[in-house]
């Protein structure tokens, strides 16, 4: 079973507000991924890190989303100005190597509701 910890489990924000969520990867997993799962079960990759370095991120992430994985602190994903369309389950996953064949272990997610 996964030991990825995500907080908070639920987050309610008004439009234009900041929304911040955190992730503690499994011990010994230097690679962290963030995905967005919408109500239609469509997944969108947002960003991934190896240690503190960004490996890949999508355009959406570059504009209103910011993320970091500081040393000795939880990783975080922050939406600077929330929009209704950001309402979704945000999943954090971690893996040992980040290779395409490596298993990604998922946390329970942070469910964001933007009113």
């Amino acid at each position, binding site marked *: 079973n996964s030991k990825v910890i995500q907080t908070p489990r639920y987050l309610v924000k008004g439009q234009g507000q900041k929304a911040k969520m955190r992730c503690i990867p499994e011990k010994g997993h230097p690679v962290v991924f963030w995905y967005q799962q919408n109500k239609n*079960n469509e997944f969108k990759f947002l960003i991934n890190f190896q240690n503190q370095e960004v490996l890949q991120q999508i355009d959406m992430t570059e504009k209103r989303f910011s993320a970091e994985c500081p040393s000795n602190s939880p990783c975080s994903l922050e939406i600077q100005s929330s929009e209704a369309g950001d309402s979704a389950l945000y*999943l954090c996953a971690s893996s040992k190597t980040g290779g*395409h064949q490596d298993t990604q272990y998922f946390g329970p997610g942070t469910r964001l509701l933007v009113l």
Partner: protein
Amino acid sequence: AQSVTQPDARVTVSEGASLQLRCKYSYSATPYLFWYVQYPRQGLQLLLKYYSGDPVVQGVNSFEAEFSKSNSSFHLQKASVHWSDSAVYFCALTWNSNNRIFFGDGTQLVVKP
């Protein structure tokens, strides 16, 4: 372009019955294929994965999946389902030079007592 298709949005079976959840993929070579399960209010849990070798791969909780290159399929099976198997099941893939997971839209499994 790569894609994963799960043609059945919802499958209902009786407890004790056998199960097959369908998955078709599109990719020019053989991808890495996964099945994940998502229980209510939980994250995704890996059931099994496949890249090469025996096309029938065993997973947790007596699930197995069969890879077919000719059909571009990776169907999930279980001989006898339990009510606790009720969940959403996602077929997914990755491939060489990419570590993002591409997910299908999921199949909601309902097991009737």
